[in-house]
């Protein structure tokens, strides 16, 4: 049975099609989920894609968090469902308090799109088990509000528990504290990442194929997980 990975479309989601394509290339079946429908249609994992949900008005992710689908996603995530939030999805996960901290305006105040080297710090999550710890990957970053902040105690706790999943290497594109690019919850099933692995899954359109690992990881995770 191929795994079924849901991709949520909020009003203003932009990378939902790309996330679905990445899921497909990784060998799973993408299932499109609609923000207004609380039913997850039995998917095995969920991706909250990038974009500008609700125009990113007020704060990025602040309004999307209240979408009907999010109530189910939050509950399911607490129950162990693998959830990956990419960019806007990461912002939504923080707003929904599935992940600690917040994503704020880039320190240099500009939207920035570039190919970015990341170091995978934790290969112990549902979305990074295909990598080696310390492995460097090249993935596009593109955001205006990607600066990760949290209070020092939270940051220390993330570090101590090995929950910093990836860090920017060779230049921090947005001023994130401790160069943090991705984090996870204590259980390792929920991951938020600012850069866009779904844009690095094809040689023709991406800077590398490194993004694929995030999607193949969850398949591996699902096979290993008890049904």
């Amino acid at each position, binding site marked *: 049975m191929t795994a079924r990975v849901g991709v949520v479309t909020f009003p203003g989601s932009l990378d939902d099609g790309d996330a679905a394509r990445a899921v497909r290339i990784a060998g799973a079946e993408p299932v499109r989920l609609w923000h207004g429908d609380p039913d997850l249609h039995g998917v095995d994992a969920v991706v909250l894609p990038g974009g500008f949900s609700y125009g990113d008005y007020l704060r990025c992710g602040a309004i999307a968090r209240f979408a009907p689908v999010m109530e189910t996603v939050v509950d399911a995530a607490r129950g162990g469902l693998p959830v990956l939030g990419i960019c806007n999805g990461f912002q939504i996960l923080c707003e929904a308090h599935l992940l600690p901290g917040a994503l704020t305006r880039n320190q240099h105040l500009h939207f920035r799109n570039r190919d970015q080297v990341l170091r995978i710090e934790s290969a112990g999550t549902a979305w990074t088990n295909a990598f080696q710890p310390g492995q460097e990957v090249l993935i596009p970053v593109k955001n205006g509000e990607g600066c990760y902040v949290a209070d020092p105690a939270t940051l220390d706790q993330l570090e101590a528990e090995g929950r910093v999943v990836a860090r920017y290497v060779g230049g921090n594109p947005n001023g994130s504290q401790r160069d943090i690019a991705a984090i996870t919850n204590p259980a390792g099933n929920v991951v938020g990442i600012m850069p*866009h692995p779904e844009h690095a899954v094809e040689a023709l359109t991406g800077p590398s194929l490194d993004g694929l690992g995030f999607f193949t990881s969850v398949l591996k995770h699902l096979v290993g997980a008890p049904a």
Partner: protein
Amino acid sequence: MTTHPEPAVRETPDAVPAEPQATAVVPQAGPVDAGRRTEAAPADDWSAGVDTVGRADATPEELQPYAELGLRDDEYDRIRHILGRRPTQAELAMYSIMWSEHCSYKSSKVHLRQFGEKAPPSDRLLAGIGENAGVVQISDELAVTFKVESHNHPSFVEPYQGAATGVGGIVRDILAMGARPVAVMDPLRFGAADHPDTARVLPGVIAGVGGYGNCLGLPNIGGEVVFDPCYQGNPLVNALCLGVLPVDRLQKKDATGPGNIVVLMGARTGRDGIGGVSVLASATFDEGSEQRRPSVQVGDPFMEKLLIEACLELYDAELVVGIQDLGGAGLTCALTETAASAGTGMRVWLERVPLREASMEPHEILASESQERMLLVVTPEKLEAVLKTAEKWGVWATAIGEVTAPSPDGQPGRLVVTWRDQLVVDVPPGSLVDDGPVYARPMREPADLILLQADRAETLPRPANPDALRETLLRMIASPNLADKTWVTEQYDRYVLGNTVLAQPEDSGVIRIDERTGLGVALSVDGNGRYARLDPYHGTKLALAEAYRNVAVTGAKPIAVTNCLNFGSPEDPGVMWQFAEAVRGLADGCLELGIPVTGGNVSFYNQTGAAAIHPTPVVGVLGVLDNVAERVPMGFVPRAAGDHDQIFLLGE
């Protein structure tokens, strides 16, 4: 946004009377509106000030501010002749907008004809000049559409919003053809790089182009950034959009089928960009109203994204008969163009238009340039489904009128508009769209051209030794025009949609259109105002040749051309000559290269006082790649095992 506090949809089919009789329909204010509508004066207060057709008949001698609206004496006389009476205020506003240079192309029309006359035959062209954008077939099933447009002046006044709404406007043009917008480009011109005002304009424009395009989810795949003091008081912000459609999804703007319903979809209408017709304020308008008429439109890319998805869903379900975007001339243009191109009439109840400010007057509603709106023509049976789709995507959709039959004698129908039971407009739509003035303006080669041309490249001193050569090279490298553009292009998303094969810093952007077959297109925009200033005919040909080359070197076959012609005042014979030469150059160049101009845009009056910008034709060329995997990127690819590429220089 699907949880509008009320359904986004507020009219049902039976609210539209079958007969084109004036029927009072009280606009129902929803909760969101309620707060803002409370300021509205009762309807009766307004009717006193509204200029109706009856009043116009009864007061033929009333003085009207047509000159302030930019209409000449003879143009005003023509309007009176067409109508057989003086126009109402609303009609006057409509004629002044539709007969403006911007909408009527009255100074450029006689020249632009060459694009059609000299166009090489093409069996790919599904829609050409005159449509919202040209449509070119690229395979049995697929077509692409692309067009470039200017938003120069608004971007000088308010760089962020001006540039943002420039992107929004061209995207709606593409959407109106039935296409999904898939990429944007932005040819830009600024004043001197170190001028303080450039420090205001440039970051705002870049942020605006990025802010709108990024939020819409359209990759930016190329453009230009050029600095020259001639653009100091008049920067150029041109925006190009590319769209893709299945051949059989091509949409028309024609308001065919009497009895069909006219639906306004998208944002609510506010007082955006009606500065031009503000002299028409009625006596009942309170003091301080002047400042309530912003000349700047504010864009809402989120609304536009929803509008795109809603429209595409409507097209795929075959729910619309005709569609037109609302751009420069707002409802006026959309209503008259859709009716005129079908030869039908239209009956519109203006008070049904959802407003942001309840105190708006009829001529303001007709002239408003509020962004993110589309006009649809739908059959009565499908209205319900259309409104449902709008509701799903959280955009307003309101039935505001219906299509009426041409007159029994075969004459086209009339556009009849009422406002709370008052007849405010009764015109032949074609008179606004097609019968506008056309001028063959005087032209004269600029007097200083001969002096400029005398200063020939051959006579310039050349670097004579290695040191001089080094110095020249360093100066060139330091020139803002040759410098790295990363500061700009990093602010644009080039990855979204996952089909960008080439983008900055490549010569052309390349977009994959069909994931299955690898079919794709390459696009480049180029222009050189300095060449065009020296010789507009050849300068324009050079711009075409450059864009053509940029497309060809990726491995694509160039097949279509779009253009944006940025010039000074057409009333200046020197500028008019430059314009005519540029058009002739582009038409001749296209003939020689064997590709048609499929559309474009003219922007006149780019000048500060008497000083015009350099004539700046910007030319976009589109090419097809049967398989984007075979595209040739710009850089030398490192070879394994010490193999080396050979380098050849082609041409002189």
